[in-house]
């Protein structure tokens, strides 16, 4: 199925939880989904016979400029039917929450922990959302565009002394 057909299918099933289909300025046509509806959309995408998206290739957080919304992008693939779809969910910076797909795809477990660690996006329903790359007592979420590194961490200077 093409991305346009999948978008039509999803829109028919989930109506206003599917916001739009972005086709301009991207090599992968993207379906924008409301953040709280990601879990049920992914359940539908995986369990329906005609869609059968059994493989989550990539899950990444994204910050455009330091002021507007954060977003999470999902790249899905079906190994049986060999078609692709990309999903995107926008969420506001102060209170970012997206529903988790860790119980649907095993890949999402660690990828969501990384998005929490580096972007501060909370995934509701994740079994164990804690930092994965940085230490538990690290302050801040480094990949956000407005992140400023602290001067010291546990007594060690971070910036290079020139």
């Amino acid at each position, binding site marked *: 199925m093409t991305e346009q057909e999948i978008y039509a299918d999803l829109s028919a099933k989930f109506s206003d939880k599917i916001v739009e289909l972005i086709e301009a300025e991207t090599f992968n046509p993207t379906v924008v989904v409301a953040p709280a509806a990601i879990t049920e959309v992914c359940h539908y995408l995986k369990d329906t016979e005609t869609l059968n998206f059994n493989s989550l290739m990539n899950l990444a957080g994204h910050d455009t400029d330091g002021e507007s919304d954060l977003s999470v992008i999902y790249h899905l693939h079906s190994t049986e039917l060999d078609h692709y779809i990309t999903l995107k969910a926008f969420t506001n910076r102060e209170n970012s929450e997206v529903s988790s797909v860790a119980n649907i795809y095993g890949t999402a477990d660690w990828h969501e922990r990384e998005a929490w660690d580096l972007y501060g996006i909370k995934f509701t329903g994740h079994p164990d959302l804690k930092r994965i790359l*940085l*230490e538990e007592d690290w302050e801040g979420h*480094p990949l956000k565009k407005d*992140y400023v*590194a602290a001067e010291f*961490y*546990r007594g*060690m*200077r*971070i*910036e*290079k*002394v020139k």
Partner: protein
Amino acid sequence: MGALNHKFNENILITSLDKLLNWSRSGSEWYFQFGLACCAIEMMSAAAARHDLERFGAMPRSSPRQADVMIVAGTVTLKMATRVKRLYEQMAEPKYVISMGSCANSGGPYWQHGYHVLKGVDQIVPVDIYIPGCPPRPEALIEGLLHLQKKMREEHILAKKED
């Protein structure tokens, strides 16, 4: 035994205790294989057949208790730095540290935007030899070990240290 033939009377060798100890220590630099990143692969290549570190007496040891020299090969991140310090303190005196590669020397290519990289392992442990390179060739690592041998031969480990 050509050079030593007929030079000494009946198995008596006269030397200083320092020289004897230094000779035996520099000929058996057992290194603590602390490979962290890409430089660890060059350290492994140095231990393999073509560049053969063992002919210099340098044997890899996995435990800090059995090692003389710690080769910090690779980037030291802030998460790892506390562990590096703890392992250094577990080594027995006399001990040395070789900082291998630009990441361990001063942060390497990650010096500018690396919020999680320690800019040089000498911020937490005292370093004896720095080996530049990204990654340094195995020959460069061998040169570093030979410099350390030279440094060892000039030490007086039995002399009382002034406090």
